């Protein structure tokens, strides 16, 4: 039975997340935008609260750790589970502040990776810890198959060597999920992810980045130098299966891309709501029944942006809902990420324009949201990478045919 409304059972969660966004995030939003690299200690208490929300809940939490896929979902009829609830929680929290969400202890994308592919034993061992994700290297961004970091088996340990950049929460997390190649001659099939404890002596922090936006979130660069991890720190299968290829590592993305899309949806909504309030103060009413072009140019532009926002939201819910129901969703996950990423940038910049000097100045958060927005069209796969993935799937192309 087709229904695209937020399920009732998630309303308390969304309300709670919205309260956190309103009461905790918004008041400190500007502070940590200005004090880049300062640790938002207000979040510690909050993280404990969210752990509590996650505990024993079928609904799942507001954070990134809740996206484990249920394999038996397909036969049980329609399911609204943790992927959907997580998306909804993230939308609300990022309506508050996306940089602060990214700084939430124990809710990192590394946690999503662990939740997506870890064995029960690994879950037990690493559960409750904060995990960052280290994929990008100076010479390998979108082309993650080209990563140069290596992992060599030495007795009961893997030895990791290489350089990782753009690691969100890399300095603050307890664990770093590092992508490395078991055998660089075997291409993408040999790329595996390894869980590295942050205090591992082989993991050296090089620096923290200064960024356009999401400044509350630290972005670390690391060198891995003879970094030794136990054999069971490898996530997924240690076999180099050239047929299955990249599947194992990329599977994480099917679960995390809707989450990043949800972040974009949250930022876009923040911009739209604030702009609407400001426009109404200025005497511009948005009328849904009258044709957009019969209204003021500002109202017409607003409606156009809100329509794109609606599409981004619904594509994101679709991708998460498919994950909840065990349906393959990499096409829809990438469509959602592409649409939400570009919409978020277009909407937040458009809102700055509509609000003029007020939007551009630092007295309001509109300019900050417009700066924060841009990363959402880049990380977890750029706009162009999403279009590539969508095109390859639609057109049945291999990566060698459609480069």
């Amino acid at each position: 039975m087709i229904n695209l409304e937020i399920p009732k059972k998630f309303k308390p969660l969304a309300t709670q997340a919205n309260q956190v966004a309103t009461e905790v995030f918004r008041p400190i939003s500007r502070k940590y935008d200005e004090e880049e690299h300062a640790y938002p200690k207000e979040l510690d208490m909050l993280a404990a609260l969210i752990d509590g929300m996650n505990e024993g809940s079928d609904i799942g939490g507001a954070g990134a750790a809740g996206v484990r896929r249920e394999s038996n979902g397909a036969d049980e009829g329609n399911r609204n589970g943790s992927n959907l609830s997580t998306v909804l929680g993230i939308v609300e929290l990022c309506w508050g502040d996306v940089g602060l969400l990214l700084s939430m202890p124990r809710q990192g994308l590394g946690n999503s990776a662990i939740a997506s592919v870890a064995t029960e034993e690994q879950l037990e061992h690493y559960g409750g810890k904060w995990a960052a994700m280290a994929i990008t290297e100076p010479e390998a961004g979108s082309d993650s198959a080209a990563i140069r970091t290596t992992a060599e088996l030495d007795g009961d340990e893997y030895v990791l060597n290489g350089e990782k950049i753009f690691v969100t929460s890399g300095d603050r997390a307890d664990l770093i999920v590092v992508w490395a190649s078991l055998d660089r001659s075997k291409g993408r099939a040999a790329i595996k992810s390894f869980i590295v404890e942050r205090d591992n002596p082989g993991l050296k922090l090089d620096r923290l980045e200064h960024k356009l936006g999401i400044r509350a979130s630290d972005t670390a660069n690391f060198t891995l130098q003879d970094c030794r991890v136990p054999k069971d720190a490898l996530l997924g299968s240690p076999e180099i299966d050239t047929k299955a290829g990249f599947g194992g590592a990329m599977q994480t993305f099917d679960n995390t891309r809707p989450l990043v899309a949800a972040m974009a949806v949250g930022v876009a909504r923040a911009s739209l709501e604030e702009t609407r309030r400001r426009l109404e103060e200025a005497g511009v009413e948005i009328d849904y029944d009258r044709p957009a072009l019969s209204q003021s140019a500002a109202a017409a532009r607003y409606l156009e942006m809100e329509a794109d926002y609606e599409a981004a939201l619904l594509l994101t819910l679709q991708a998460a809902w498919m994950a909840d129901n065990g349906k393959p969703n990499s096409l829809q996950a990438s469509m959602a990420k592409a649409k939400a990423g570009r919409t978020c940038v277009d909407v937040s910049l458009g809102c700055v324009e509509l609000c003029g000097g007020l939007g551009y100045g630092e007295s309001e958060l509109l300019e900050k949201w417009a700066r924060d927005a841009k990363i959402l069209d880049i990380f977890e796969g750029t706009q162009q990478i999403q279009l590539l993935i969508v095109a390859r799937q639609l057109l049945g192309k291999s990566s060698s045919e459609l480069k």
Partner: protein
Amino acid sequence: MPTATEEKGVAERSMGFGLRWLSRLAGSDLLDRIRIRKQVERALFSGTKNGFRTATAAGRTFGAAQKLTGPARQATGKPRSLFDLTPDEEQQMLQEGVRDFAAAEVRPVAAKADAERKAPSELLAQVNELGVNMLGVPEELGGVMHEQAAVTSVLIGEALAHGDMGIAYAALAPGAVATAIAHWGTPEQEATYLPSFTGEDTPAAALALLEPHPLFDPLELETKARRDGADWVLEGVKSLVARPTECELFVVAAEAEGIGPALFVIESGASGLSVEDEPAMGLRAAATGRLLLEGVRVPKTALLGEGKREDYVECVQRARVAWCALAVGTAQAALDYVKDYVNERTAFGEPISNRQGVAFAVSDVAIESDSMRLATYRAASRADQGHDFGREAALARRLCSQKGMKIGSDGVQLLGGHGYVKEHPVERWYRDLRAAGVMEGALLV
């Protein structure tokens, strides 16, 4: 005379619409049956040739078949508790049935219908046989749907427009009149007009809102209805009405003196009512024309329902969702077509789909057509659950208007010069998709 509903057992009625639909469609049996009837249908639907300006069709005499104490209305559905994108079983069967029908019967004749500005009468009769024009009619009045069926209407509109948007418009336009009367009409109007839509010999009919002037706003109508004694007298022009020369019944929007925008039921043949041909960029299979109202005098009972503003606004909203459904189906048709084309067409020694410049355009068509679809489904689903859906209808319309137009354009672009010529259907979709942001009224979910 027993109504259609009374003749059926409770069990059969409770089976719902889908099963009945399927039993009609299943196998070649049904289609064969329809084909045998072709001659009869042809006689019923023989097209009137469009002259420069003609009187409206002579039409039948509509008379109340039964007395109702209050208006019969479809129930709104129970609020649904879970997010779900899967149509229910009945809807899936309908969807598949109409998809097959659109592929087998509609698409093959679409180019000819476009060129001749005429949807084949037999085809329209077949679509009507499927029951699509009685989706909005309550069971008490011979309809098949107990609950409101906006989602079902959207799925059908989408599937039919995948075959052809112009034919879909022609085929679904009468249903808008039935739905309008069933949703907002008085008991007398329902009893008078609805029975004719549930039988076999259903009338062509049109819901006319749009007017031919720039920045048309359905809430600011130039067509006026003034009171004159016990009558209403209507003046104005309506634009892009489907098959107006064949219509036996019109529901016309006018600014009613002392009331505001409202709908009026006008039978063809009314004095002062005439039709002017109005060929357009697209939707040509619907043989669009203008409806001219020059001192058309109707009794006060012609005002649909009680002339409530919220009814009229809901009509505008439901029409927008219906046009979105057609745009979604047409956009999907374009996506399906260009996907195959860019994979087959070679340039510089390889398929053009190996180039990002081409492939990314296809990705965008897919992303935006899915955007359009989800926004449309949301609006329709809210309507069925009795929620406000004006916002969702407006946003779906923005998407279908802008992205739909872009998809039409990219569809042609991706085929290059081949897209510009009539050998391929993309140029027709380019023309048709522009309609989604222009049309108001005319169709309803």
